[in-house]
């Protein structure tokens, strides 16, 4: 049976209603068919769409829905069973697909939603990055500005220019309305408006430095926003507009005096200037952080540049570079020098050690040589002296003329040898400086006379005249080494005689004048005058054979003889003049020869330094002027002595003797009294050893014991009338300093005292 799906219509089938349904269905189907087409079209268009499968499903679902509605169109009229079957199939399929789609959508829709959020997130991120880019760009710009500014600042190192330029550049860079600099006054109590950007002539405003706003700015190195109405910021005439924001920053001012290298970069300075920066009024501008940073950096840079400027005083950038190079170079060189000095120091230490060793070795060598020389001198001296003595004795005996001649030759040769040996010893001691002058006061005039007396016989034999001329300003007594001076003089004079065949020699002595002291050939001889010294100048002129100009330097050298040894009288004293030179040098003097040539004679001139005997004020010391036949004047005044004699006459006489000589005498008659009375003040104790009741030897021993621990023991001298040799021995054994034979004359006592005080012992115990 054909089943009709149409059911009983309660109302009459409305033709219009049917028509509308028919049309709607048609359009629905159309839409249902076109939606997938659109989707497919757009999906094809898009590059990425991950949900194709979903679309297909969706499409299928829509298509089927459309098909269903389409087929529905045929069901409005009588339709066959096939149509009903197709309708059913379509409906079933649609149901399946719709459910599947619904299920699938559950999965998809959250995904689709999340896509949307991600998109939103990415957009935000992009915006943020954009912002940051902007910041970096501005910072870079700031940096560029700073560099430019510092370049400008450094390009002129004058402080005023620095500051003015700073203000200018800052004003330009930051677009400021006003930029001002307040400098501290000399007193440091006020700030003076020194520079402004716009005002051409600062009015010379001052503000006290102790304002709280100023303190606030000075206490921090940051730029500080200050109120536009604070005194430092009131720079523009009040306008009708809102003043812009004002910022102030401290600018450290440097003086070279308070600059410390190790305080860098913390500049220790107490003086600040104040820089005030004003944004244009009535602008919405605000101080940005990077702008504040710029200001701070600039303020800091000013200080650094000031340091450069003060250090250099340079005017341009290249000098700054030079400074940099110089500093680096200096540092490097310092490092090099330091290293060098360390190495040098090490080297020096090594050298010192080596030198020390060498010195010790040299000293040992010198000592060894001296010992050797002394021994050799002694050893060689003994046989030589024996030869000389025996030859002299032989001369006294009966000899034939030939024998006499031979003995004379032997004697002469031996004498020569003896002299040579002595000279060698002297010279070696002179050379290594171990020879010391024996300084004492002596009579200069008599020295010359003695030398001449020695020379006169020889000169007489050779029929030569000898002249002595002592200048009147030459003092009679001098302080020096008498023996060595005589040796020098003898040597020089002897040489003069030796090399003169006719005519004579003349010796003149005078006090050297300062200008004449300088020998042009000895430019390193700088004699100096003083109050207790004078320079003796001696000239020995001879009319002899003279010396070739070329030979002159060799004359004073050792072992060099300019004359051939053929002459009978030539003594071959190769060392003589060398020794003289050494002695003269030891006496801080100089010796040289002048000669006009061979056959014209020669002059030996030497200058030696001698002391002037001083006047002694001390009463304890004697001033002794010795000399043959001279008026003897001396002072023993106040010399404390003790006399012990139990014989009253003898005691009185001895006391009187000593008192006459100026001593302060304490006379005692017993040994006990003597020992008790002797003190360190006494210089000498005279003990009569011929006393019967008193053992003077025991007294001497006791006196020595009393002074055993102390130095400055008084001299103990024995007085005896006994010529027995035993007395002398006993005295010496007991430790006495001398023995005098009674009766003692005034002269004898005088010489005893002077011997004691000068030498510390009695030279002769007569």
């Amino acid at each position: 049976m054909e089943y009709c799906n149409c059911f009983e219509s309660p109302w009459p089938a409305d033709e219009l209603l049917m028509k509308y349904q028919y049309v709607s269905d048609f359009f629905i189907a159309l839409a249902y068919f076109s939606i997938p087409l659109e989707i497919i079209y757009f999906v094809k268009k898009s590059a990425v769409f991950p949900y194709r499968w979903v679309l297909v499903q969706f499409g299928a679902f829509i298509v089927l829905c459309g098909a269903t509605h389409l087929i529905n169109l045929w069901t409005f009229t009588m339709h066959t069973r096939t149509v009903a079957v197709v309708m059913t199939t379509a409906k079933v399929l649609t149901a399946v697909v719709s459910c599947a789609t619904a299920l699938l959508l559950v999965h998809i829709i959250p995904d689709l939603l999340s896509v949307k959020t991600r998109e939103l997130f990415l957009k935000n991120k992009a915006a943020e990055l954009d912002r940051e880019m902007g910041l970096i760009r501005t910072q870079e710009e700031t940096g560029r500005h700073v560099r430019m500014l510092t370049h400008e600042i450094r390009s002129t190192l004058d402080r005023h220019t620095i500051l003015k330029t700073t203000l200018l550049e800052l004003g330009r860079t930051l677009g400021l309305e006003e930029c001002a600099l307040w400098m501290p006054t000399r007193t440091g109590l006020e700030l003076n408006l020194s520079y402004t950007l716009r005002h051409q002539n600062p009015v010379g405003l001052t503000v006290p430095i102790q304002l709280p706003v100023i303190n606030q700015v000075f206490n921090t190195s940051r730029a500080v926003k200050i109120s536009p109405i604070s005194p430092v910021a009131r720079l523009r005439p009040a306008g009708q507009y809102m003043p812009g924001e004002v910022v102030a920053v401290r600018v450290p001012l440097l003086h070279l005096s308070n600059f410390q290298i190790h305080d860098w970069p913390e500049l220790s300075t107490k003086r600040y200037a104040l820089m005030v920066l004003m944004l244009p009024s009535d602008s919405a501008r605000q101080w940005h952080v990077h702008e504040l940073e710029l200001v701070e950096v600039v303020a800091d840079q000013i200080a650094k540049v000031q340091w450069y400027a003060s250090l250099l005083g340079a005017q341009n950038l290249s000098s700054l570079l030079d400074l940099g190079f110089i500093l680096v170079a200096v540092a490097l060189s310092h490092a090099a020098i330091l290293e060098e000095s360390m190495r040098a120091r090490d080297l020096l230490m090594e050298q010192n050690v080596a030198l020390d060793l060498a010195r010790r070795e040299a000293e040992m060598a010198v000592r060894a040589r001296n010992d050797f020389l002394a021994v050799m001198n002694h050893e060689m001296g003994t046989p030589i002296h024996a030869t000389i003595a025996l030859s002299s004795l032989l001369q006294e005996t009966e000899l034939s003329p030939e024998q006499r001649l031979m003995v004379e030759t032997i004697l002469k040769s031996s004498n020569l040898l003896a002299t040579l040996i002595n000279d060698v010893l002297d010279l070696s001691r002179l050379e290594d400086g171990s020879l010391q002058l024996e300084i004492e006061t002596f009579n200069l005039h008599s020295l010359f006379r003695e030398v001449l007396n020695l020379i006169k016989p020889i000169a007489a034999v050779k029929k030569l005249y000898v002249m002595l001329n002592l200048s009147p300003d030459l003092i009679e007594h001098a302080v020096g080494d008498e023996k060595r001076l005589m040796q020098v003089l003898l040597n020089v004079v002897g040489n003069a005689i030796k090399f003169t065949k006719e005519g004579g020699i003349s010796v003149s002595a005078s006090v050297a004048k300062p200008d004449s002291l300088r020998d042009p050939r000895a430019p390193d001889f700088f004699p100096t005058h003083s109050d207790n010294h004078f320079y003796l100048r001696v000239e020995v002129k001879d009319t002899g054979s003279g010396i070739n100009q070329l030979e002159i330097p060799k004359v004073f050298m050792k072992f060099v003889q300019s004359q051939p040894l053929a002459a009978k009288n030539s003594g071959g004293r190769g060392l003589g003049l060398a020794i003289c030179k050494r002695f003269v040098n030891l006496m801080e003097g100089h010796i040289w020869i002048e000669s006009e040539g061979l056959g014209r004679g020669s002059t030996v001139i030497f200058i030696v330094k001698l002391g002037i005997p001083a006047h002694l004020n001390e009463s304890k010391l004697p001033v002794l002027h010795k000399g043959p036949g001279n008026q003897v004047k001396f002072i023993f005044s106040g010399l404390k002595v003790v006399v012990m004699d139990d014989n009253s006459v003898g005691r009185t006489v001895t006391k009187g003797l000593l008192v006459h000589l100026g001593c302060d005498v304490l006379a005692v008659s017993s040994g006990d009294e003597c020992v008790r009375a002797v003190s360190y003040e006494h210089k000498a104790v005279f003990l009569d050893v011929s006393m019967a009741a008193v053992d003077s030897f025991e007294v001497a021993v006791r006196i020595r014991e009393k002074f055993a621990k102390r130095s400055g023991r008084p001299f103990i001298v024995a007085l005896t009338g006994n010529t027995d040799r035993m007395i002398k021995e006993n005295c010496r054994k007991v430790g006495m300093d001398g023995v005098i034979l009674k009766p003692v004359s005034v002269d004898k006592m005088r010489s005893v005292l002077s011997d004691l005080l000068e030498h510390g012992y009695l030279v002769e115990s007569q």
Partner: protein
Amino acid sequence: MEIVGQLQKQFVDFSTSLNHEGFLDEQYLQLQKLQDESNPDFVCEVVSLFFDDSEKLLNNLATALQQQVVDFKQVDAHVHQFKGSSSSIGAQRVKNMCVAFRNFCEEKNLDGCLRCLQQLKHEYFLVKNKLETLFRLERQIVEAGGTVPVIG
């Protein structure tokens, strides 16, 4: 001043003769040298001392030699003292006598000693006399307004 001159000449002659005769030797001259402004009576003092000392010694000697048992050591000691003082003065003959005396003492020769003592006394009084004369002359010269000549 003739008197002064005369006296001085007398003085010189006398001193010279004393020296020649050996009564006073160089030592006496030395003593005279010791006399100066700071010590104007030095010689007189010393000589007086000598006189006193000597007389004491002579007495001691006499006593010592008169003992029953003569202590020659003691005698020698005295003579030694005498010798010392006489040589300090410059009384040469006295001193020489003392030397001889000491020899006898050593030999313990009593006779010799006694003889020596006598001679010693004799010599001593001789030289004492001479010295007193000398002093008298000196005083006279000074009183006459002159100065005593210095010999030597």
